[in-house]
């Protein structure tokens, strides 16, 4: 474009001209951090934020935690939005396109498709996150919504769940993962009957390993949740909603009455929450030339979050990224901190590729179960998982460490909040295993609450 002679940039690096039209698709945490970082980096061109939901960017972790409590996130019917609409539009100069999901991408014309509209870009951050999976036969896109059956991803989902809990629902959670377990916790706090159904023999074997999965199973049982392991769901029992009757939360014509298991058992239910995992929200990118993972169709990026398509980066839940901290292993994380880190980095790298550095994240997530806090730092992909402290009997928590060769690569901490970031530092520093074990065994558990 430019008539000025210039040094040819390396392949896949800087766009030939400075970015003047930056489009961020996905208006949750990663997308928000991308627009914030762009302005902070001094970018003064056009900035468009495209979001599928009607809501301003809001904080998702509370949706399965405080929002479901009896006093419902201090009584509010909403959750924290990080910035007001005025701040986004006026202070950050963002052209907000909410309630308008991207439907396609034309990488030749460099345009994002939103329905019939085409939004031109010369820099693009893909931050569309992920969408929960439905059980076969429950996807509203196929058969219409079934009252009382929901996932928990959005504020609207959380309102559906809370309404049902307030009505005293009998809850069945499908999938003993983090979201489902948090919903189970909220329901037990209200004294409601809860059953959690998990197809595997232990919860969370993929995300934290079987040793710790057993600890999580104990938390459910101690709280009075009926945990059914190693059994699948065969289908839902439903009934028509009588004409003129109050529609069940989340649905209209039919509502759920029970969950039928593989072994023939029928669990009665007024509310069924599906927590069976998510998939990257990338259907709009199919055929666009943006590389998608052959397994789950996430966006494959390098360690700087570049897709290899000129000017196109990806951030957050959608991104399969090589992490130098873990021998350049690719992983796709669905964590708050990952989305926050990626969003800012993607925008900075896009605007100044020459200064891009590999994103070396130490994965971190937390989950609140029945007045217990689980925190995980690092990776569970390890040669050995060792329980190095177990003071649960005296309410003093639990620590498991994850070893690769002679390094500590991960840590699971239950109810020992003081230890988490110290262990994270050792993991980030590629610290020796022996010293991490020593740290934990010589640190007294916290006093009984």
């Amino acid at each position, binding site marked *: 474009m430019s008539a000025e002679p210039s040094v040819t940039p390396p392949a896949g690096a800087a766009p030939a001209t400075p970015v003047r039209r930056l489009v961020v698709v996905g208006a949750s945490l990663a997308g928000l951090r991308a627009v914030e970082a762009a302005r902070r980096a001094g970018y003064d061109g056009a900035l468009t934020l495209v979001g599928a939901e009607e809501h301003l960017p809001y*904080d998702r972790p509370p949706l399965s935690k405080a929002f479901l409590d009896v006093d419902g996130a201090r009584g509010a019917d909403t959750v924290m939005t990080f910035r007001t609409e005025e701040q986004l539009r006026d202070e950050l100069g963002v052209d907000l396109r909410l309630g308008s999901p991207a439907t396609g991408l034309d990488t030749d014309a460099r345009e994002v498709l939103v329905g019939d509209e085409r939004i031109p870009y010369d820099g693009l951050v893909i931050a569309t996150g992920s969408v929960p999976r439905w059980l076969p036969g429950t996807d509203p896109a196929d058969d219409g919504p079934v009252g009382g059956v929901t996932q928990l991803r959005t504020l609207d989902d959380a309102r559906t769940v809370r309404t049902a809990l307030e009505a005293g629902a009998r809850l069945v959670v499908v999938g003993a993962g983090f979201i489902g377990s948090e919903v189970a916790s909220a329901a037990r706090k209200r004294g409601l009957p809860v059953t959690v159904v998990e197809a595997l023999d232990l919860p969370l074997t993929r995300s934290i390993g079987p040793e710790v999965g057993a600890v999580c199973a104990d938390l459910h049982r101690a709280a009075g949740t009926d945990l059914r392991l190693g059994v699948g769901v065969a289908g839902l029992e439903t009934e028509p909603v009588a004409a003129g009757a109050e529609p069940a939360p989340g649905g209209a014509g039919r509502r759920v009455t029970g969950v039928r298991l593989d072994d023939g058992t029928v669990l009665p239910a007024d509310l069924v929450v599906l927590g069976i995992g998510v998939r990257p929200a990338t259907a709009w990118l199919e055929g666009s030339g943006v590389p998608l993972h052959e397994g789950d169709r996430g966006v494959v990026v390098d360690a700087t979050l570049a897709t290899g398509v000129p000017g196109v980066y990806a951030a957050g839940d959608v991104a399969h990224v090589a992490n130098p901290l873990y021998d350049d292993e690719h992983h796709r994380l669905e964590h*708050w*901190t990952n989305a*926050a880190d990626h969003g800012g980095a993607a925008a900075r790298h896009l605007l100044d590729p020459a200064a891009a550095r590999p994103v070396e994240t130490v994965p*971190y997530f937390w989950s609140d179960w029945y007045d217990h806090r689980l*925190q995980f730092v690092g990776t569970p992909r390890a040669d050995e998982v060792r329980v190095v402290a177990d003071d649960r009997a005296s309410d003093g928590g639990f620590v498991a460490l994850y070893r690769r060769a002679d390094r500590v690569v991960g840590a699971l901490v239950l109810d020992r*909040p*003081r230890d988490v970031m110290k262990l994270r530092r050792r993991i980030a520093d590629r610290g020796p295993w022996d010293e991490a074990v020593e740290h934990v065994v010589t640190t007294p558990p916290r*006093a009984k609450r």
Partner: protein
Amino acid sequence: MKIVAALDTCEGLGMCEAMAPDFFEVGDDGVVEVLDDSPGEEHRTDLAAAVDACPVLALTLQG
């Protein structure tokens, strides 16, 4: 420059400690302790990163 931590908002998630361990530490009670609430100007970059990293927006820098 002064660090202000809203202790009723803090959930003890520890991102501030991850970003600036000389200034923040999560205690056994699961709430942050500010180790030095009037840091020197040379720490501003690290502290701004810690404030931004807080998942519950419990931290502010004044001055």
